[in-house]
């Protein structure tokens, strides 16, 4: 509760400073609109923002589901099949040297202006952090547990399923947290390159028409989505892994 209070106070101070800056410098509204103007834009364009916001949110969520599923699958294959590890690991590393954003125009060309190219973009951005986090976790199983499994006569598949995968879930969770934070970037870049809907499209459109207050409003909606999504995923992961040592041990108590 006090944490929320502190966040609100910080927000209020920032907003007041922003408005004061606008009043003091008398900067034109098409360069930097004050928070009051942005709030009014939020109200006026609420249906429009909601419509485009839902498109972007859909892209982010689908990308998240696909990226996490593909990343988990890849990490499991890499960890359990030696041949796959030898042949695919270099490919995976090299593929990450290519900036994913450079692929955005290609994806739009291949998958069209609709949601598919943006979902693909978000999936690509999410795939790598999830794969590396889980693969890393699967490789770092406590050696003593594997010794125990061997003396108990466990097969490799059984040890993977009962020991290595559950032990790697906290690592997967941090991968998913990173993925959740970067997922909106993938969707927005995809929309910038070519689209007819979504917050990224709306922002470009508003920018071109000097509707900077609308641009800020769209940015606010995007930020709200991103923060809410991250908080939801974080809470979900905490609930799912109650045995995980508390990662916030160093955080100050309220």
């Amino acid at each position: 509760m006090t944490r929320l209070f502190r966040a609100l106070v910080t927000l209020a101070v920032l907003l007041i400073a922003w408005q004061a800056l606008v009043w003091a410098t008398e900067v034109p509204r098409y360069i930097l609109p004050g928070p009051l103007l942005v709030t009014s834009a939020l109200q006026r364009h609420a249906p429009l923002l909601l419509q485009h916001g839902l498109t972007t949110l859909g892209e982010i969520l689908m990308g998240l589901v696909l990226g996490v599923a593909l990343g988990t699958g890849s990490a499991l294959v890499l960890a359990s099949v030696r041949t796959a590890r030898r042949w695919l690991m270099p490919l995976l590393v090299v593929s990450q040297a290519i900036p994913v954003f450079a692929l955005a125009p290609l994806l739009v060309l291949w998958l069209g202006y609709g949601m598919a190219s943006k979902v693909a973009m978000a999936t690509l951005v999410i795939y790598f952090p999830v794969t590396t986090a889980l693969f890393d976790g699967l490789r770092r199983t406590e050696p003593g547990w594997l010794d125990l499994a061997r003396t108990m006569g466990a097969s490799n598949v059984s040890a993977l399923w009962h020991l290595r995968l559950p032990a790697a879930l906290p690592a997967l969770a941090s991968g998913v947290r990173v993925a959740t934070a970067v997922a909106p970037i993938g969707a927005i870049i995809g929309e910038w390159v070519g689209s007819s809907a979504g917050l990224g499209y709306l922002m470009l459109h508003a920018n071109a028409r000097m509707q900077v207050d609308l641009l800020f409003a769209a940015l606010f909606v995007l930020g709200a989505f991103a923060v809410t999504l991250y908080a939801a995923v974080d809470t979900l992961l905490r609930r799912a892994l109650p045995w995980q040592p508390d990662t916030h041990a160093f955080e100050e108590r309220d």
Partner: protein
Amino acid sequence: MHDIVRPGVIPASKRPLVSVSISAARLTYNGVPLFTDVNLRLEPAAITCLLGPSGVGKTTLLRMIAGLAEPEPPTTIAAGDGLPLHERIAYMAQQDLLLPWLDALDNVLLGPRLRGERLSAALVARALDLLARVGLEGREHDRPAALSGGQRQRVALARTLMEDRPLVLMDEPFSALDAITRLRLQELAAELLAGRTALLVTHDPLEALRLGHRVHVMTGKPATIGPALEPPGPPPRAVDDPAVLAMQAELLRRLAS
């Protein structure tokens, strides 16, 4: 009390006994021989203690018997009946190695679960019974994080016995515990290991003398294993047993030499 028939447990009197002979064991580390031509015999239904300072290679010797380390030629490890040792051993390490996401009961049932066995009511009843025997009745559904170090090692002991193997290999199982907890667990282990062949690797002379039917000292560079000391009376022996105290002095002398 070991002859009471429990669901799924082979009574101690009918459990097949196994003896193990290790001969011409050899271990080199970075080109330096840690031991060469070491021989050790594990007598059936007896606790053999291997006592030595750290770094002498006793843990590796245990791991060779457990099948966790590749024996270096010309080492031979053979069971008295000539059958393979594989799947006839239970292993207990210095760390409890409990899985943090499973509760105490599921940790005890880890072996059957890893082998894909169906967790029958009889199996669960046996696990509950073992947990009760190590003094953890009512804590079956606590996760390891909620248990103390001693309680966790009790769960590990129950998990080791759940395997119900004729040969039990223990690698300094109580060395991470405080003195009082260690003494209690030694008593418990001596009682529960009765009727099985066991190898206990330790660096604590008192532990070896309280628990071992036969106590060997492993020292030197390269290391050799001395003849067995056989403390009188059945384990667990009292801490202030005069024979134990006298032998402890002797063991400390041998360890220091």
